[in-house]
């Protein structure tokens, strides 16, 4: 077993002038400071099947059956 990787970080001086920000959105983060770790996921689904060209029809129900109608 090799020795573990050693990472030594020295944080230098940080001086920021002006931040002009339009938006922070969808589980994203803007951090002015220190942190241990940042893990951000984004699942974004816009496939071709997302475009439906039909007359009035309900969206699928949780069971997956498209013909399930409310009694």
């Amino acid at each position, binding site marked *: 077993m090799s020795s*573990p*990787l*050693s*990472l*030594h*970080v*020295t*944080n*230098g*001086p*940080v*001086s*920021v*002038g*002006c*931040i*002009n*920000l*339009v*938006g*922070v*959105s*969808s*589980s*994203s*983060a*803007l*951090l*002015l*400071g*220190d*942190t*241990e*770790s*940042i*893990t*951000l*996921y*984004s*699942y*974004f*689904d*816009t496939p071709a099947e*997302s*475009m*439906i*060209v*039909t*007359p*009035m*029809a*309900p*969206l*699928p*129900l*949780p069971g*997956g059956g498209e013909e399930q109608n*409310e009694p």
Partner: protein
Amino acid sequence: MNRDPRSTTLLSLYVNTVSSSGIVHLGDGQDTNMASRALAVQRAIANFQDDEFFFEAYPIFYLPQLVPEAEVPVRFRSESPWPTLQVGCVYALGVSSSSTFRVGCSGPVQGVTRIKHIRHFNNLVASPVGTSAENRDYSS
């Protein structure tokens, strides 16, 4: 991990809008977990007959979340000889949808957002032949 938290000096802060579980946090914090789910439906003709919007009907909302892990063990050490972060003015138009704007130090930050887009053209004839412009009902 030895982490000596630094302090942040902020000259001015302007945030126009904080909405949809957005967070503006001034100061230190611990773990931050953010989650957001959205079913974005655009319909040509609105249908408010009954509740037909179920997250469970789309796999994107229940697919397992892959967690990245370090390939090798890392012995991490950091030091901050300069104890202050200096920031001028911050102008933010919006903070929304389970997002965080923090001035200060924090623990691990994790955020998950899952968005499903649906465009439903229910004003068109259901013929796959022709372009959408050709299938459009121009009578109304």
